[in-house]
């Protein structure tokens, strides 16, 4: 062993448990043969003993006894506040869910309401501006009970309820299906629209007309389906 190597382990040599036995034996042998290293070992041993004495003098020292109680209280309070914070977060999440559910329910109700307002009505009270206009003209809204869709005969209709001022004062012929129109299905609804048109337009509706009187204006009732197309027509005499 060289003096430099001895120097590296001299303090561990002064503390028996810090060095393995074989290395300690070699180092001590070197110290016995080298006066300088022997002095170094003695100094290291004295320092180790001084440090041991200082260490032992403080071995029983500890924090004041009341610290434990205070810190345990602080620990409990900390975890209580954590629990309160978690509870608040849970409530906030639930509140958000409640608002989301309310908003969804409100949206659904609005959608249902809008559908009820916007969809075509059976017994149509004031559905659109055109309906209002028809009502002003004295149109009646009726339900059909068409039994025959063949189109070979005019559909039988039964007028129910609604206003029908003109029906009481004017005589009318039976409705005649408009050529190439679709018939009524059971449950279909429509409106009767009284219009004034040149006699010549009756030709488009399937009537034969006197050409000399083509320009004359005549009143007709049009039976208009939900799609707005006239399905049948009758002359108002």
């Amino acid at each position, binding site marked *: 062993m060289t003096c430099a190597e001895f120097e590296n382990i001299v303090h561990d040599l002064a503390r028996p448990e810090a060095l393995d036995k074989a290395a300690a034996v070699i180092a001590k042998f070197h110290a016995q043969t080298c006066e300088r290293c022997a002095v170094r070992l003695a100094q290291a041993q004295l320092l180790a003993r001084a440090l041991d004495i200082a260490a032992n003098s403080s071995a029983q020292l*500890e*924090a004041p006894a009341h610290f434990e109680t205070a810190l345990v209280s602080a620990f409990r309070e900390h975890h209580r506040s954590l629990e309160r914070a978690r509870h608040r977060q849970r409530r906030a999440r639930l509140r958000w869910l409640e608002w989301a559910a309310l908003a969804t329910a409100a949206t659904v109700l609005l959608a249902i309401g809008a559908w009820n307002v916007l969809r075509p009505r059976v017994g149509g009270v004031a559905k659109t501006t055109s309906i209002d206009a028809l009502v002003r003209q004295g149109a009646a809204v009726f339900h059909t009970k068409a039994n025959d869709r063949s189109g070979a005969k005019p559909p039988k209709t039964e007028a129910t309820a609604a206003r029908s001022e003109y029906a009481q004062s004017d005589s009318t012929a039976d409705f005649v299906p408009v050529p190439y129109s679709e018939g009524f299905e059971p449950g279909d609804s429509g409106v009767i629209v009284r219009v004034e048109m040149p006699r010549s337009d009756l030709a488009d509706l399937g009537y034969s007309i006197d050409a000399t009187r083509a320009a004359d204006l005549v009143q007709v009732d049009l039976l208009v389906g939900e799609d707005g197309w006239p399905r049948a027509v009758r002359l108002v005499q």
Partner: protein
Amino acid sequence: MHIRKAQRIVKQGVMPDQAEPRDEELLRRMKAGDDESFRAFYSRHQRPIYRFALHMTGRPESAEEVVQEAFMTLIRECAKFDPARGTPQAFLFGIARNHVRRLAESDGRYVPLADDELQVRAGHASLSYGLGESLSDDLARAEIIDRVRRAVVALPAHYREAVTLCDLQGFDYAAAAKALDCPIGTIRSRLARAREILLTKLRPVPVALKKPSTAAGGAR
């Protein structure tokens, strides 16, 4: 078991009883809010932390402050403990070191303990080295303790930490390296350098420390 090794284990605060829960288990329970586990963890580690702070700062009041702050920080931040990065003891020592450093920055130089304060706190002086019961030996011992403490407190912080843990609290190199979060080689080199500085500061060594038969020609 070798006496010195037993003393070293007690100094390190390691529980030799296998039936006691390990630190990791105590910390896990603490995260769940178990105050009994916190109490057990505190009982197990408050003394090493207090002594570490005392040797580092030289003041009992500063050491108390470090203990309080270290465990309060542990209460708040035990969820941050990562077992992959080290032991709970190393985690706690890291917290204590930071508080010691902060105190050093705010308080300036430390004043080493007066030995009579130490005696009052310890309750008795340790006389386990067979240095005799005469007054002169007591005085020599007191002088040694005082001089050693002053010399340790005067060391640069990283040397002081190594000496405090290894020479004053009985940590081995591996445990000290974990507590200080540095390699074992760094601990060894810091310790070697610190001991050389202490030798310089402590010369001449009191005659009372001389053994009757030594290999050397005696201290100067």
